[in-house]
């Protein structure tokens, strides 16, 4: 294979990895704090994408500026889901929680289908074709912004978790729920905020992807298993792990696509995922 193709695949894999990292960080936060596997994560990504689409279509708001609206909006949606649906069953067995988030996924997807129809939609910004040339590798500007934006938001979240009181409370409850409540942390409030932030992260990832990806009510399915893989590979509850997991999945996916015919390349990240699950189920970084 030509070296250029390989290099191009590596760069494009890393770029995708930046977005996967942000999706994974959101899922990871929810898992870390509440120990819930959120099957609705992909549908929340879909909601983020549609919000961006409608803001662009109706109000001509640039997709990247719309982050100022989509992030708080998705945060609010996350808080509502947590308060109304997840909180009542937080002490129930894991299977019930899995099925509940599955129900939320089905509901949101079909809500989108009902409101906006099954059509595939795209957002066309004026700078869609802009390409940056770095010697022999070419980088699509939109993908680069998504990559940089994803990492920047993840970094902001990291600082928030490390430096602020709320961030510390979140980390404390994720390590020891009961212990945290004993020292006066309102675990309920921590859960609300964590679910809100996790949702806002995936919403932001959706917004960042909208300019170069198509939307449909079922688009979340494409990213659901990816998000799980990112989180499990890096280690559930490990922040850095989720970021590195994002890059691993992005890279293997993109390398698989250039080395294997058709969509067969997708099998590479899956196999890697299963292998890691088998030999180090707690993830690479935990």
């Amino acid at each position, binding site marked *: 294979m030509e070296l250029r193709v390989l290099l191009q695949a590596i760069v494009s894999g890393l770029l995708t990895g930046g977005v996967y990292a942000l999706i994974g960080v959101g899922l990871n936060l929810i898992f870390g704090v509440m120990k819930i596997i959120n099957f609705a994560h992909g549908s929340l990504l879909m909601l983020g994408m549609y919000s961006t689409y409608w803001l662009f279509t109706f109000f001509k708001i640039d997709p990247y500026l719309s982050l100022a609206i989509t992030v708080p909006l998705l945060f609010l949606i996350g808080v509502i889901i947590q308060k109304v649906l997840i909180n009542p069953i937080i002490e129930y067995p894991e299977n019930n929680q899995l099925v509940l988030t*599955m129900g939320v996924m089905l509901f949101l997807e079909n809500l989108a289908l009902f409101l906006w129809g099954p059509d595939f939609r795209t957002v066309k910004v004026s700078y869609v074709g802009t390409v940056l040339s770095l010697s022999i590798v070419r980088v699509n500007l939109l993908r680069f912004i998504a990559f940089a934006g994803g990492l920047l938001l993840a970094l902001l979240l990291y600082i928030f978790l490390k430096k602020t009181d709320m961030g510390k409370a979140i980390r404390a409850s994720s390590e020891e729920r009961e212990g945290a409540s004993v020292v006066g942390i309102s675990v309920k409030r921590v859960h609300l905020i964590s679910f809100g932030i996790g949702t806002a992260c995936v919403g932001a990832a959706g917004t960042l992807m909208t300019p170069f990806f198509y939307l449909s009510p079922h688009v979340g399915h494409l990213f659901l298993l990816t998000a799980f893989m990112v989180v499990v590979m890096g280690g559930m509850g490990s922040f850095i792990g989720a970021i590195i997991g994002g890059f691993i999945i992005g890279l293997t996916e993109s390398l698989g696509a250039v080395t294997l015919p058709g969509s*067969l390349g997708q099998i590479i990240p899956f196999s890697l995922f299963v292998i890691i699950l088998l030999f180090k189920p707690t993830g690479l970084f935990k």
Partner: protein
Amino acid sequence: MMSKQVKKLSYGLVFVATACFLFWGPHLLSSYLLHVVILILFFSFLGSAWNVVSGYAGQFSFGHSAFFGVGAYLSSLLYVKSGISPWIGMLVGAVFAAGLGGFIGYLTFRYKLKGAFFALSTFAFSEMLRIIALNWSITGKAMGILIPLKEGGSFQAFQFIDKLSYYYIILLMVLCVLSVSYGLDHSKLGYYFKAIREDEEAAGSLGINILKYKTIALAISAFFTALGGTFYAQYMFYIDPDIAFGTNVTIEMILRTMLGGVGTVFGPLIGSAVLESMAEVIRSFLGEYKGVSLMLYAAMLIFVMIFFPHGLMGLVRRRPKEAADPIKR
């Protein structure tokens, strides 16, 4: 107070009446209603199969479409490529799926993958199979497999013109899987499964070979799920990678079982009947609005999960004592 004989007689009468109803009743149904009944039975069959490993043994699988797809594809391929009767293909598929289930079970349980981790690894296996089916020329890639029709139907080819034949076949399959579930409720094997579900470490310390029995549970479950796959392929005469290995069929199995009552004999049947009839009623009223029926379906599921965590069977059955109740710990 009824004497023992009268009681026996009345049970016998109820049994005969039920049998007559199940046998003759469908003759009165329209083709559409018969189709609905077949779907109810079909999904309850799949739900019961899933229930063996996820309900009784407590290992939540999110990748049962892997076994469903193996059953559907193997029997169809054997029939289309080499003319082998789907009845034989059905058995071959089921045995193969049981082997696959044993393999996946052995791999994952050996490394003590539990709960969400086990669910996700089964999900990854089913996705891998979907991608293989999507890219392999033998399985017809994205086009899937269209089963050629025989004029006038043929028992040997598992093709019937009237829906009644399909009804009797799926009825028989459901009775079969229900007796397996009943057997699990009343046998040593079933007690092992339940012990593992309730407290794995305690079960292990009592000498139950956890790895072995979890793997057996998954293999049994996979075996029956694959039978359902063949039935589906022969009823619809068409399968493709998304139908066979996609998440939709897995979600149907899980939702119906959880709604009816997970880990119970009749839960999957009740859940399937309630959801299917509800979906049909909603569809007939709101059919032109895309997505509404599934939205209500999802809303009902969420409602049941929050307010009736034992599923609908929890309303009928005597509730376990507070301390023994796994839901309210």
